[in-house]
């Protein structure tokens, strides 16, 4: 090894770091690289924190994007004094971000979205949307065995006829293994990372600290309430027995003719930390798209996804708040499987009433009432207090979200202009910091964004109004029980049914 290797390595690391930064604003880019370097250099090189900055991983890329967004909004146009202040906040935030275990992925992906927009193509954006889920660290098999001993007093291979040591999917709180019961059924076994609840609690504490310097001003109290809401829903997700009960409720809402499959739960193999369900054969969205599905099939799945989500919403008043596309299984016989009901949120009566009123006002095209409801949902007393700009922008988002409700006939969720308008408005809301609102909107937004991202990538269409009328029982028609045409063999999928996102 030559003597100048460390120095050379340092220069290379610096170049790699600069390479990760967004291209715009050269001065800001260089300053950001310096800051990142300084923070990283303060720690011994063996910590995961500095490795994560220096090695140029995907994580580093997305965090840089996040920081670039921060910098662009807080630094680039600011006065010198403001810059120094922002830098101090930025340094603190950088250090905190590196310590977050569970929310880090989601926070950074949000940053990446904000930073790359509007440069990102809608397609890239749609890919990013569902990536907004949380992540637990992976578990090796030795850890899985210990969890099983704690939960069942038995090893996996004692409990099941066979058990795959490698997980086949990541879940938001852990991972999923394939196994076979002694009675022969193939099952999916979801196992929770031990102590994840404590990690969530400490991450949210960190997130509160991370957000403090964003100077949310009058909306800070609202942000605190929202973080408490996030904590409540995420902690509820750690109870797999509650999830099992909910999955059963959802399962009861569908019949075989619907073409929608909710896997059966095996309670005798489930505990608070381990959930065993029927294994659904099929592929995830990526794989489906790679197979270049016909428009017919795209429309069919769009229909099924719409039916599934609207039925859950209108019949049980529950939102699927996890936008992870891995929760949808595209089955070889043309059916749609829904798995993982961990991250869900039930609407309260008050929240539900507001939803109903907004829909009614929209369908009546009662603009005055719409405005009143938007003001109310944003937690203001009057339009004057809310301010024109905020009212207009929030209104734009809500109207975009509800656009399918107003469109007769087939609605094209793959339409680029439609998708971009929505993303545009939502990103603008984030940039302006117009985030004040009812805590439940975190989940409605996540629910709509996740589903819209999927149907956009599917380039699918469905008759949304028809589905809405049937599922909600509103609009003068009774809810029908047969929603999907009879199943046909996979080779020739059924005629394009109506159906969303």
């Amino acid at each position, binding site marked *: 090894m030559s003597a100048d290797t460390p120095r050379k390595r340092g220069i290379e690391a610096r170049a790699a770091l600069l390479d990760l930064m967004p291209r715009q604003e050269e001065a800001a880019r260089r300053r950001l690289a310096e800051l990142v370097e300084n923070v990283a250099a303060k720690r011994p090189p063996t910590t*995961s924190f500095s490795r994560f900055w220096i090695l140029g991983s995907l994580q580093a890329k997305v965090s840089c994007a996040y920081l670039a967004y921060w910098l662009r909004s807080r630094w680039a146009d600011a006065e010198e004094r403001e810059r120094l202040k922002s830098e101090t906040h930025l340094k603190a935030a950088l250090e905190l971000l590196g310590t977050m275990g569970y929310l880090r992925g989601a926070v950074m992906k949000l940053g990446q979205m904000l930073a790359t927009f509007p440069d990102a193509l809608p397609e890239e954006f749609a890919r990013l949307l569902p990536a907004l889920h949380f992540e637990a*660290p992976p578990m*090796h*098999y030795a*850890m899985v065995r*210990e969890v099983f001993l704690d939960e069942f007093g038995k090893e996996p291979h004692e409990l099941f006829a066979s058990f795959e040591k490698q997980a086949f999917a990541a879940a938001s709180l852990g991972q999923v293994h394939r196994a076979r019961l002694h009675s022969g059924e193939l099952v999916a076994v979801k196992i929770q990372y031990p*102590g994840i609840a404590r990690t969530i609690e400490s991450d949210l504490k960190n997130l509160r600290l991370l957000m403090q310097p964003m100077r949310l001003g009058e909306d800070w109290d609202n942000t605190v309430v929202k973080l408490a809401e996030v904590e409540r829903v995420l902690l509820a997700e750690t109870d797999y027995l509650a999830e099992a009960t909910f999955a059963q409720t959802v399962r009861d809402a569908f019949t075989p003719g619907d073409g929608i499959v909710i896997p059966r739960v095996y309670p005798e193999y489930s505990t608070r930390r381990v959930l065993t369900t029927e294994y659904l054969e099929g592929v995830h969205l990526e794989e489906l798209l790679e197979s270049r599905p016909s428009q017919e099939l795209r429309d069919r799945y769009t229909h099924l996804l719409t039916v599934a989500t609207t039925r859950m919403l209108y019949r049980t008043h529950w939102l699927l708040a996890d936008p992870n596309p891995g929760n949808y299984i595209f089955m070889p016989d043309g059916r749609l499987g829904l798995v993982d009901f961990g991250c869900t949120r039930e609407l309260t009566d008050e929240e539900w009433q507001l939803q109903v009123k907004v829909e009614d006002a929209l369908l009546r095209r009662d603009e005055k009432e719409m405005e009143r409801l938007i003001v109310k949902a944003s937690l203001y007393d009057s339009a004057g207090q809310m301010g024109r700009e905020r009212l207009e922008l929030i209104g734009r988002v809500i109207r975009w979200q509800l656009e399918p409700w107003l469109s007769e006939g087939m609605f094209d969720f793959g339409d680029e202009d439609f998708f971009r308008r929505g993303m545009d408005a939502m990103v603008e809301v984030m940039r302006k910091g117009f985030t004040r609102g009812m805590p439940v909107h975190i989940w409605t937004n996540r629910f709509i964004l996740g589903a819209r991202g999927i149907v956009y990538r599917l380039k699918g269409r469905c008759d949304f109004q028809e589905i809405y009328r049937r599922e909600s029982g509103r609009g003068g028609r009774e809810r029908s029980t047969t929603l999907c045409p009879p199943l046909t063999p996979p080779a020739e999928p059924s005629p394009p049914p109506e159906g969303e996102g």
Partner: protein
Amino acid sequence: MRISEQAKQLCRARILEKAAELFAARGFDQTTTRDIALAAGVAAGTMFNYFPSKETMAMTMVNEALAQGREEFLTRLDGGESLEEELFLLIGTELRRLRPLRPFLGPVLERSLSPFPRKSVCPEGETARQEHLECVRQILLRHGFVTTPEDVAGTIYWSLYLGILASWTGDQSDNQESSRALIDYAIRTFVQMISGAHRGGDHVR
């Protein structure tokens, strides 16, 4: 008259059993050797022939549990484990055996395993350290690492292990699951440290 070896063993076992009951019920510090002798039905003098102190009694229980854990650990191996997994299984299996003693372990381990210089070193504590580190050395050897209990790697490992024990003895979470995450991180940190920057698993990103 000489008492038989069998009778000795029975007496020793009875003393340990009663001591464990009292430690669990009253706490280690609140239990006196006199209480134990009384409960076991032996004279205080006789008891000291078996165990010179209550600390020795507690650490004897600990060492027996740890030895059982290590024995069981070996039967659980299937040969395909990574270094991280093997260390995780070792600690997990040992702690499972220690679990019944957990209610009174805090002060016992603090005194017997303390790495700080002390006037009197508890020989059973030293045995616990040596035996555990020997097992770790064997595991490391199987994975191609040569180390001795006294070298830097051994010392760092022991520090992490003491941290794990300290967390685990006071862990209020169900089945001490918070400590399980700590064990996972501690082992990955150790493996990363002894094998350079490129190992350590997916946690380290």
